[in-house]
């Protein structure tokens, strides 16, 4: 108060009374609204919950195998190979007598871990590049976007083959390999969004109060492109699980004996007619997870994407 002097302008008449009632109602932010819209979408919520459950199971894998399946993912039992689903192996065993359920749970760690890590890396790099290119524009924008164009025009599968020869794929390198292509799309998306948000007056208004570029970008631009990012992230998980599974299947991804959903399929293709459950269970897991993440992604887009409103 004191810095503002003692002469208040409160004598100015304002249309007060009509707003009193309004002032007491609950403040609805963009986020609250979107969140409520998302909650109203039952199928979307179910899909999201399923992914959360799968992620929780994957995270708590040792607990599950300890109390539920009682097998080790790499525990070979040469006397019990190709056992059909049932007792004692709920989902059967593979050619080395390893428990399929246990390996699926552990494989989920790798597959989901790679998927989330990839999305994380691609989003971080893509967002940074997109924000910088969109905000500063001019030559910086030209350079960065031409790099993105190049990245997006590399035939991904050859890059993956080359990279997995150069770096022995483990979950972390695999995530980086996939993200090295994935960030380009995110950068484009974010840049486009920044270009439109940048035109709005509040950016100029924020500059006019003496804010630095960094503050402008991080505090004012980023929250405004966040909806697009959330949508990209939730749709991205499914795609990346598929890419990862394909790479594993081709032997370019996670290497055996480490279990991943993709390489469990690779091993089992030889036994397709002999022990079909070895194909069905990993395949079904991938199918359901990708489907759930796509359904969830669409629900998130319906709820969050400002352009759909």
């Amino acid at each position, binding site marked *: 108060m004191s810095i503002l002097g003692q002469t*208040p302008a409160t004598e*100015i008449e*304002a249309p007060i009374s009509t707003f009193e009632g309004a*002032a007491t109602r609950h*403040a609805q932010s963009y986020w609250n609204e979107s969140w409520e819209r998302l909650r109203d979408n039952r199928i979307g919520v179910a899909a999201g919950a399923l992914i959360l459950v799968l992620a929780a199971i994957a995270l708590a894998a040792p607990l599950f195998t300890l109390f539920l399946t009682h097998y080790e993912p790499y525990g070979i039992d040469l006397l019990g190979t190709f056992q059909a689903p049932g007792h004692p192996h709920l989902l059967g065993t593979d050619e080395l007598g390893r428990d399929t359920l246990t390996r699926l749970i552990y494989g989920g760690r790798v597959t989901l871990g790679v998927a989330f890590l990839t999305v994380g890396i691609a989003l971080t790099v893509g967002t940074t590049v997109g924000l910088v290119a969109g905000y500063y524009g001019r030559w910086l924008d030209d350079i960065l976007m031409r790099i993105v164009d190049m990245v997006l025009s590399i035939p991904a599968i050859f890059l993956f083959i080359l990279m997995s020869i150069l770096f022995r794929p483990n979950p972390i390198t695999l995530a980086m390999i996939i993200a090295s292509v994935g960030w380009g799309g995110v950068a484009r998306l974010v840049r486009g969004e920044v270009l439109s948000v940048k035109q709005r007056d*509040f950016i100029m208004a*924020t500059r006019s109060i003496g*804010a630095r570029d960094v503050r402008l970008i991080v505090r004012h631009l980023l929250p405004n492109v966040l909806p697009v990012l959330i949508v990209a992230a939730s749709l991205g998980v499914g795609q990346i699980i598929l890419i990862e599974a394909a790479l594993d299947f081709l032997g370019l991804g996670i290497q055996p004996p480490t279990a991943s959903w993709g390489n469990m399929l690779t091993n089992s293709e030889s036994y397709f007619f002999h022990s079909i459950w070895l194909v069905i269970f990993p395949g079904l897991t991938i199918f359901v997870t990708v489907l759930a993440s796509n359904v969830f992604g669409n629900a998130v887009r319906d709820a969050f994407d400002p352009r759909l409103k």
Partner: protein
Amino acid sequence: MPPTLLEVQDLHTVFATKAGKVKAVDGVSFEISPGETLGIVGESGSGKSVTALSVMRLQRPGKIVSGKVIFNGRDLTKVSEGEMREIRGQDIAMIFQDPMTSLNPVFRTGWQVAEPVRLHHGLDKAKAMGVAVSMLGKVGIPSPATRARDYPHQFSGGMRQRAMIAMGLTTTPKVLIADEPTTALDVTIQAQILDLLRHVNRDFGTATILITHNLGVVAGMCERVMVMYAGRVVESGPTVDVFAHPKHPYTWSLLRSIPRLDAERHEPLKPIEGLPPDLIDLPTGCAFHPRCQFKIERCMHDVPVLNRVGETQLAACWVTQSGTELKGA
């Protein structure tokens, strides 16, 4: 005369476009003293907004090619970007035309109103919010403590403009630049906002630069007025004198093109013939001469200089400078 607070000398701001250079501000000079109100009028594209933005050095992608902006003895066109940031929002605040888009939709209004004090006075969140709430109250927002927690979209246009004004005032700036603050508002709200700006000017002693294309707003609010055309100042002086005896044909035509209460009955409004000039390819001589009904031979060749005409006014016009009175049907 109180000492000058802000002085702009021969400012030139240029935009490079594919079609050529646009001289958006072409040799503008003015000054403003503490507590004064200055109106800048002109039609769209006359350079009034760019002049204001150039003072704040926010004219990007335009470039200030020459001239000085002297504030507190320092030339703002020469200081570093860091010093400029200190001045923006602290010494010189700005209010924009469209309150609908001037607030960031993702933050609570109070948070945004508090942003300048947090940036400049280093107040913590709670203290800054206190300042913001009290300021929101002063600009006439009812139950400011509750409203500060609302998001901009829960505010009406007039309330948002009040919030913008509150935001500008939290740091008690010495100069407030209002760039068409009422253009996007309806007439009753316009009156309230102008009233508020008048109070701000009187109570806080903030020198106010009001940019508008609405002559009525200037008449009601500003002590002095500056008329711009095609990036140049064509006339300036005390508002009363300029309105009573315009010394530039553009001002003269402008005043005859708007309805006024004291006009003769049945007198038709007279629009200004022709179109505003192409800023890339300005007419030679006086930029207004193709639309001017008083033009003389000289107007087509020589660019008129801003000179004293009459007792209190300055006008850039060869006709009135030679003593001719502006009269006509």
